C-alpha cells in the first residue's frame, strides 16, 4: 500500500518539476518565469523527498528527507527574493501584459 502512495507522490513530484522547467521556457518575462521556478520546482522536489520518506519509514532516512524538504522550503524563497530584486534593479524589461507597477512610482 505504501508503495503505491510513494509511487504516486514520486510521479506527481517529477511532473511538477517538468512543469517548472516548461514554465521557465514558456512564460513571457523574468519575474513570471521565477513564479514557475520557485513554486513548482520546490513543490516537485518536496514531493519526491516526501515519497522517499513515505516508503522507507526508517527514522534516519525520514529525518534526512524532512531536512531536505525544510532546506528547499527555506532557501527557495530567499534565493527568489534576491534574484527578483537584482533583476528588477538591473532593469530587466517586464512583460507587455503587466497591468500595474507600484514600485516604479517611487
Amino acid at each position, binding site marked *: 500500500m505504501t*508503495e*503505491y502512495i*510513494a*509511487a504516486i507522490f*514520486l*510521479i506527481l*513530484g*517529477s*511532473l511538477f*518539476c*517538468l512543469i*517548472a*522547467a*516548461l514554465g*521557465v*521556457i514558456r512564460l513571457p518575462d*523574468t519575474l513570471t*518565469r*521565477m513564479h514557475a*521556478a520557485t513554486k513548482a*520546482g*520546490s513543490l*516537485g*522536489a518536496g514531493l*519526491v*523527498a516526501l*515519497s*522517499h520518506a513515505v*516508503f*522507507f519509514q*526508517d527514522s*534516519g*532516512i525520514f529525518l*534526512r*528527507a524532512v*531536512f*531536505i524538504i525544510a*532546506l*528547499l522550503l527555506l*532557501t*527557495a524563497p*530567499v*534565493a*527568489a527574493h*534576491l*534574484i527578483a*530584486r*537584482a*533583476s528588477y*534593479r*538591473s*532593469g*530587466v524589461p517586464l512583460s507587455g501584459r503587466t497591468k500595474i507597477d507600484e514600485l516604479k512610482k517611487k
Partner: protein
Amino acid sequence: MIAAQGAFLHGAAQAAITILLAGMVLVLWRMVKGPTAADRVVAMDLLSVLVVAFLVTLSIHTGQATYLDVAIAFACIAFLGTIALARFIERASRPADENSASDNPQGQDRSQGGPYD
C-alpha cells in the same frame, strides 16, 4: 541498508528519472538562450532544484541512502552559488560600474553553461 523494494516503485522511479532528465534539458535550453543574466540565474537555480530531486529519485531507484546526503550537501552549496550570482548581478547593474551587466554573469555560469555556448 534498505529493505527490498517492490517492482512497482522501481518502475515509477525509472519514469521519474526520465521526466526529470527531460526537465533538465529544457532548463539548459533556457540557460543558453536566456536574454538577460537574471534569466540564466533563474534557470541555474531551477536546475539545482531538479538535481536535488534527481538525486533523491536515484536514492529510491538504487536503494542507497547515501545519495540523500549528497542531495543535502548539493542543496546547501547551490543555494550559496545562487545568492552569490544574484548579488553579483545587483552590483554589476549599479550605474557606477557601467560595463556589461550581461557579459560578466555569463562567465560565471561556467560549470553548467560552458559546453553549450
